């Protein structure tokens, strides 16, 4: 019989809509799996028994941030925080794996995870500085010239002057790394933004809207493909919507939420399903019952042993993710 755990009460007394009683799968399966999968060095690998990596460690830490009353979880989180801090590169960034020498998209996730635990704010600030200095490659003068002179005019439709963040240094802006960094930015600068941070926020938000697929939703970042509308995907749509929570009434947000709600009806992967529920809850939208579906999917494939998927499922079934809510700029509303 797996150990069961207590979870923290809903933050700010606010429960997610339509989630009453949906905690047992999280407590019976997801949380014990995550505890079991932690490596001796404190981090998590992508799958049970694999070596620690920044992404799965960060997602698990973000899930653990919603838990309390268990020394087992506090100990697990402490070990993971130390593992992350030991892996920060001298320039402030995090690489995907500890033996790599160059920082990448995982820097924003590591920053979010540490920030969610209220720990190591200096390290988080240093990581964010690195992100602020990391401009994607499409902004380089030679690249812009090359695009202007040689681009196939109907291949893609996007404004290259609108830049967010790339997966790896020097490559193009894409939806997900841009969204992760924007979420971190919102937490680190809840009030007034320094000018250069404000510039990056403005460009990145504009870039996300520019990359939205016609009709709503996002794919990795190609809204138009040789004149044909790009097909939205669940995961990038979720992260773009979460990063753009400051603009809930915008037509693009609403259209994308509609698309996401429709997509929920046919989703067959636990990653999409869990993340979609997290996103719809963040926008206070009903999303139907999640636990039976997740249970059914787990019975089929055991989430393919994926630590990030188990963490997302646990987040979707647990209390509100505080790291996904911040004071909306200009509205004073959480």
């Amino acid at each position, binding site marked *: 019989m797996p150990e069961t755990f207590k979870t923290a009460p809903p933050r700010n007394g606010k429960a997610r809509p339509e989630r009453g009683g949906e905690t047992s799968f999280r407590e019976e399966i997801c949380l014990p799996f995550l505890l079991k999968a932690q490596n001796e060095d404190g981090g998590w690998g992508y799958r049970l028994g694999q070596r620690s990596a920044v992404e799965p460690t960060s997602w698990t830490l973000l899930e653990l941030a919603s838990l309390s009353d268990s020394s087992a979880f506090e100990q697990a989180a402490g070990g993971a925080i130390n593992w992350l801090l030991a892996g920060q590169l001298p320039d402030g960034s995090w690489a995907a794996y500890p033996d790599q020498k160059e920082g*990448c998209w995982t820097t924003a996730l590591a920053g979010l995870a540490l920030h969610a635990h209220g720990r190591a704010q200096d390290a988080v600030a240093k990581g964010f500085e690195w992100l602020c200095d990391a401009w994607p490659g499409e902004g380089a003068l030679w690249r812009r010239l090359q695009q202007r002179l040689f681009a196939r005019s109907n291949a893609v439709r996007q404004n290259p002057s609108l830049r967010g963040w790339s*997966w790896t240094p020097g*490559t*193009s802006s894409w939806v997900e790394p841009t969204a992760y960094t924007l979420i971190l930015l919102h937490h680190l600068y809840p009030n007034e933004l320094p000018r250069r941070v404000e510039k990056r926020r403005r460009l990145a938000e504009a870039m996300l809207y520019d990359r939205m697929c016609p009709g709503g939703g996002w*794919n*990795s970042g190609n809204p138009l*493909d040789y004149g044909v509308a790009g*097909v939205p995907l669940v995961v990038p749509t979720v992260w773009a919507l979460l990063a753009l929570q400051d603009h809930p009434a915008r037509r693009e947000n609403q259209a994308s939420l509609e698309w996401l709600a429709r997509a929920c009806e046919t989703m*067959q*992967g636990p990653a999409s399903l869990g993340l979609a529920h997290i996103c719809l809850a963040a926008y206070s939208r009903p999303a139907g019952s999640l636990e039976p579906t997740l249970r059914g999917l787990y019975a089929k494939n055991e989430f393919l042993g994926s630590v990030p998927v188990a963490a997302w499922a646990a987040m979707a079934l647990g209390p509100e993710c505080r790291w996904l809510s911040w004071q909306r700029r200009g509205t004073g509303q959480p």
Partner: protein
Amino acid sequence: MSVSNSQLLPSFKRPDAQVAIRRAEGYQANLSNLIYETLNEFGVSVRGQVVLLKANFVGPDPRGVVNTHPAVVGAARECFLRLGAKEVIVADGPALERDTEGILEMMRLREFIGPLAGSFVDLNIGDVRCVPLRTRASSLRELYLPEAVLRADFIVSMPKLKTHHWAGVTLSLKNMFGIVPGSCYGWPKNILHWAGITRAVLDITSTVRPDFAIVDGILGMEGNGPIQGVPKPCGVLVMGNDPVAVDATCARIMGLVPERIEHLAQASYLLGHLRDEKIRQIGESVASVRTPFEVLPSFRRLRAGGRHRGHSNCLA
């Protein structure tokens, strides 16, 4: 990977290639027998080995035209197990979609290969190792690659017969993009686009050269591939142990001139045979199954009669 097959040999030192074209009118056909007979004809020996089937699972595919059909993957898996493989792993690292399990469930892969937890590996996530690239076509020099790929004894590239809006075609060589892990390089693996698709294909396949290729050409895709194109029934499986020769044969079936497809032309310097006279066809002839595929206007030059400027050798 078998050492002999991963050797980089100039074409004049490489023995002639052999490519099998098998007719299969639909996915209900006895694909397992077709593949098993062909593997025996090639003398494929995998007893006691770990075989990795690198499929092409791009994303949600309600029309059944984007991804390698699970019936072909299931049949191949069964054949390699019949040949005595210790383990047969189905694997891919989708370029755009993070929810790999969602893709697999939508295409009902489980019905063809059994429980996914023990037989499928998501190459986007998991342990990786830094590998120096064996050629310097691109500026990449090294890549982190999945341990699952590096530990395999025998790698089979299993693409769909499709056009590709950047590379012209996406066949057994281009399919190897999928081994590059998203956990390191993102979704998509944009570092490869920045390095140049042709050059990156060459560096990856020279480092991890598939030992065998099985191309699902039963239902292909023409036009704006690899995702937004139009279904193109072609009714063939194309197989062989020289991935360049297999891709060249596929291109000829599609009505394209392989010498004009840049990454194939470049790959012929070190990775396999491109020229018709160096490829012995077994099974059906190219002419008997030729099905001209529509291509985007920017690739009309790939057709016989189109204007072509030639390529310089970036593997030299």
